């Protein structure tokens, strides 16, 4: 027996015998049909039926806009797998884009916008806005707020980075979007996928696909977008600032944090409840020490299930005929702008805070950019940029504080926009 790797052994390529035979078979199978068709005078019926069948295939309904979206989907999958950029989001969303852009004709309950289709049913968790809070539950059950508790003032960077939300809110209005739409677009700058989806489900469902794809794209592109801005806005000396290691945080503090956090943030911004309520619940389940069983399910089985469903339906919602519009293009532009402003906001605010801090307590402004959230990518960017200037200056643990504060900050901002605009 020959070694199976040798290509002359791959039948079906070298010798086409079986393939030819198969084609013959197909033709033969057509034979009885054609005879039957002729005998019953229904020759036309067969051709007509084939014609009708063909009319419903994706091939017959093909248009280049679908191809364009399929390419986008493939790029998402490629970036997720090859570059490992947010793969847990980009792979399902990318595959969802493929699913949503196989052309079809209405009436067979296939499309995500068609009442009663499976995708439509699974999409209802997005439309009704309850997938994002369940994702926040899982994120809460994964997140360690220690760094933030041990150095509370770094939280302010997570507030400053929300500047991008409000600036792009204004710009979006300026370029012609309605106030509600502008709010939903602005939230892209919050760098928080679930928050963006939740807000757009409430304020501008018609833009949700574009907003979600923009938000996740830029979250994946954080390592590309942020560094130039960070470098532009900092001096060499600032980039080398060393910060003190955070102190050890007690268990009691960790347990009290989600409780205080909930009461404080939602008393001021009740509309942020669905997101922050679940985030802090998840965190309490994690930190209580007596509900590990629940926290484990929240951060694994439940989070993963919802992530798959959310990803694939958000991807599928980018059906080319609804998605490829001038609005979508503008949303992408505004989203990028929003991210940049947010990054700048965090960095600059760190510099402003330094004016008031005495030597030795100063903040390295490179961690300001982590305030946009995009957990934990933007914190890692702070670390990497920091290391490129001083190989022994590890900023990661410091950057995590504004990073998780950014999640809280954008949820609060989302609550306010909801309150004002919904």
């Amino acid at each position, binding site marked *: 027996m020959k070694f199976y790797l040798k290509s002359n052994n791959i039948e079906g390529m070298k010798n086409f015998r079986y393939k030819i035979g198969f084609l013959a078979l197909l033709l033969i199978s057509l034979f009885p049909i054609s005879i039957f068709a002729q005998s019953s005078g229904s020759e036309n019926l067969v051709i007509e039926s084939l014609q009708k069948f063909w009319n419903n295939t994706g091939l017959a309904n093909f248009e280049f806009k679908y191809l364009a979206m399929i390419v986008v989907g493939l790029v998402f999958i490629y970036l997720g797998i090859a570059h490992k950029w947010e793969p847990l989001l980009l792979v399902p969303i990318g595959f969802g884009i493929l699913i949503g852009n196989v052309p079809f004709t209405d009436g067979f309950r296939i499309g995500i916008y068609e009442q009663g289709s499976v995708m439509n049913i699974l999409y209802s968790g997005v439309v009704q806005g309850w997938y994002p809070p369940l994702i926040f539950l899982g994120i809460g059950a994964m997140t360690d707020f220690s760094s*933030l*508790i*041990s150095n*509370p*003032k770094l*939280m*302010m960077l*997570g*507030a*400053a980075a*929300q*500047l991008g*939300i*409000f*600036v792009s*809110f*204004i710009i979006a*209005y300026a370029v012609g979007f309605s*106030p509600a739409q*502008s709010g939903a677009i602005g939230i892209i700058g919050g760098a928080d996928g679930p928050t963006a989806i939740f807000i757009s489900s409430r304020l501008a469902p018609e833009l949700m696909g574009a907003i979600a794809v923009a938000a996740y794209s830029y979250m994946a592109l954080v390592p590309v977008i942020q560094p130039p801005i960070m470098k532009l806005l900092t001096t060499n000396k600032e980039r080398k600032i060393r910060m*003190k*290691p955070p*102190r*050890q945080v*007690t268990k*009691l*503090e960790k347990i*009290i*944090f989600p409780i*205080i*956090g909930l009461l*404080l*943030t939602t008393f*001021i*911004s009740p509309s942020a409840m669905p997101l922050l309520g679940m985030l802090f619940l998840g965190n309490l389940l994690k930190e209580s*020490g007596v509900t*590990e*069983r629940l926290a484990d399910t929240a951060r694994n089985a439940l989070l993963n299930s919802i992530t798959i469903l959310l990803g694939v339906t958000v991807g599928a919602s980018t059906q080319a005929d609804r998605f490829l519009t001038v609005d979508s293009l503008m949303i992408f532009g505004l989203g990028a702008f929003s991210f940049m402003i947010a990054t700048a906001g965090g960095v600059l605010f760190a510099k402003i805070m330094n004016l008031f801090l005495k030597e030795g307590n100063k903040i390295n402004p490179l961690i300001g950019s982590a305030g946009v959230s995009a957990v934990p990518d933007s914190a890692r960017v702070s670390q990497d940029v920091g290391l490129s200037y001083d190989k022994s200056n590890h900023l990661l*643990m410091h950057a995590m504080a504004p990073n998780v*504060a950014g999640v*809280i*900050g954008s949820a*609060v*901002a989302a609550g*306010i*926009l909801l*309150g*004002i*605009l*919904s």
Partner: protein
Amino acid sequence: MKLLMINSWEELLTAAAIGIMVVFSVLFVLVLLFELFQVIVLKVAKKKVVKSGIDVDKIKDIPANEIAAISMALYLYLDSMHDEESNVLTIKRIERRYSPWNSKIYGLNNLHR
């Protein structure tokens, strides 16, 4: 039910301004609360340290990275602690998936016998 009926630039800018201010205010109050909390916690901790007779000044100059390492070890230790009962003695639950070179085939009906 809207808070504001936004019809003009003035109203939009007002909304944006209120928004950013509230975000800052909320997080600022959180900062204040936890700085306060921190002081209390540290005072209690210091008292305990004093009581336990450890000389704080002596351990004052442990380099930061050593502290980080110790903390991390402690953290991992403590973290694994409260799970100790759930996974004892488990090495790994091997998923039995099918592969052509593997005769333990997968499937709905034989993942568990």
